[in-house]
């Protein structure tokens, strides 16, 4: 096969595929006629964004954080508090939350950049717990476990939409944002540095790669994007409390989704969300909360032992075989 044909054919197939995918995504609200499923679909988007954001810290920068729910909470609470107390639109609140979370993430990065493996994990765990305890106990600010409600006040300018489908489209935008940032990082100088640091930190440093700077920037970006997802979640559900935003279980689930899908890749976390969230919902509905989580735990163990690169690696292999079989790939 000459060089020209497969490449053009491959590009054509990819273009058609993308167009179809886009059409499908835009048509989702029409395809899912029940509010229950559309609701779930929007949550899939939230988790896709969360897992993708986490991946920037854990997959690209190698920092396995088990405290990311903290940033989710910061995004959610900042937007809600600014809206409830000061009438600031959640769109602006989202930016403020992102900046706050980014700074917090950077701080965490500075504190933890030298820690290896389980020590880093434990530090982020402690950090997550600190934020959670603050959320529960600083009642003056957060109303504690009672939570905060976001009144349905005003419309689109306050990120509050009467129509559920609009949340779907905004959610798509959110995922597109995080995906875009991920892809940009992959191709950028930061991306190269992060991979080098992951592969061999001493060698990378000897080439002039500044460890702290890279890890801190990645941590800040990851935190900020997580917070953006938090704001979106707050305006979607219109009720937040520490249990739904800063709890440890959330941090674990974020990691689980990304790992199952495929850490270190831009699309892996998205795949993870598409598979894990509906699966969890189905399990929860049919078996109950406990058994569903038990399955989650088992899934985590199995994936991590047998396919630590996530399902996307397997999917890529299948895709490649199909490509070779159909002559599209050499």
């Amino acid at each position, binding site marked *: 096969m000459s060089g020209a044909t497969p490449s053009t054919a491959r590009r054509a197939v990819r273009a058609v595929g993308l167009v179809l995918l886009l059409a499908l995504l835009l048509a989702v609200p029409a395809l899912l006629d029940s509010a229950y499923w559309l609701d779930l679909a929007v949550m899939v988007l939230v988790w896709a964004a969360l897992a993708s954001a986490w991946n920037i810290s854990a997959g690209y920068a190698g920092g396995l954080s088990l405290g990311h729910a903290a940033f989710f909470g910061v995004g959610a609470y900042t937007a809600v508090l600014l809206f409830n107390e000061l009438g600031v639109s959640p769109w602006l609140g989202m930016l403020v939350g992102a900046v706050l979370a980014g700074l917090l993430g950077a701080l965490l990065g500075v504190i933890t950049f030298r820690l290896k493996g389980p020590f880093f994990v434990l530090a982020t765990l402690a950090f997550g717990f600190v934020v959670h305890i603050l959320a529960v106990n600083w009642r003056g600010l957060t109303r504690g476990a009672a939570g905060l409600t976001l009144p349905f006040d005003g419309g689109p300018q306050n990120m509050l939409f009467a129509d559920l489908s609009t949340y779907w489209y905004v959610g798509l935008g959110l995922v597109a944002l995080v995906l875009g940032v991920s892809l940009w990082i992959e191709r950028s100088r930061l991306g190269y540095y992060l991979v080098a640091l992951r592969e*061999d930190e001493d060698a990378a*440093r000897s080439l*002039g790669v500044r460890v702290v700077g890279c890890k801190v920037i990645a941590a800040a970006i990851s935190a900020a994007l997580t917070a953006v997802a938090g704001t979106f979640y707050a305006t979607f559900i219109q009720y937040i409390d520490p249990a739904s935003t800063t709890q440890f279980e959330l941090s674990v689930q974020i990691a689980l989704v990304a790992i199952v899908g495929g850490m270190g890749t831009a699309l892996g976390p998205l795949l993870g969300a598409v598979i894990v969230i509906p699966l969890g919902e189905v399990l929860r509905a049919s078996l109950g909360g406990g058994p569903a989580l038990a399955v989650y735990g088992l899934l985590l163990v199995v994936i991590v032992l047998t396919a630590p690169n996530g399902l996307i690696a397997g999917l890529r292999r299948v895709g490649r075989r199909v490509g070779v079989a159909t002559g599209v790939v050499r």
Partner: protein
Amino acid sequence: MLGIEHVTVDFDGLRAVDDVSFEVAEGQVVGLIGPNGAGKTTLFNVVSGLVIPTRGRVRLAGEDVARLGPAERSRRGLGRTFQVVKPFGGLSVLDNVVVGALTRGQRVGEARETAAGILTRLGLERFATTTARSLPLALRKRLEVARALSTGARLLLLDEIMGGLNPTEVNETLDLLESLRAEGLTFLVIEHNMHAIMRVAEHVVVINQGVRIAEGTPEEVTQHPEVVAAYLGEPHESA
């Protein structure tokens, strides 16, 4: 260009380097030789910033670099290879070199061009898209050198880049060294291959058990009684 002043390194009671001092002038090729375990790689680690000496100072172009980590020293023109090669295994050969080029401040596109140029210079252009971890040892060693060059380093620490190479490969590497030296680069080379040292180094420092026991031209040093004693049993041939 490089000044090592009374460097001593203690590891939990083991003295790996004991009051070693010497200099490398700009444009020189200096050999650092000594039996295994003599402390040569530790000295490299001190110079490149991976190990903090218990005592002593390192000067790069006159500047005391004690406060600078490896990354900062690299950006001041210091490059090194590792004795046990450390490629970025999952990256392509080209990308390995791009990383270093990026630290020069070049944009990604520019850096890729610079890297491609370096690969061609070292005869690695055929392997540009090969994954680094699938390279055989000789090519990995060459990749180490390519990477060290990618940062635009003016002073290069080469740690046994000829270990495990066959005579043809050794000669190719020596030719490369000489052409780089002609461009004004400075080298400090750890090497066990005496033939190579004789051919390319104008000055040699000998370390044994952490102590500098001799220094001079290759001829002077190889006749030095202490050096001969340290290497007892090690055959060498002069050019």
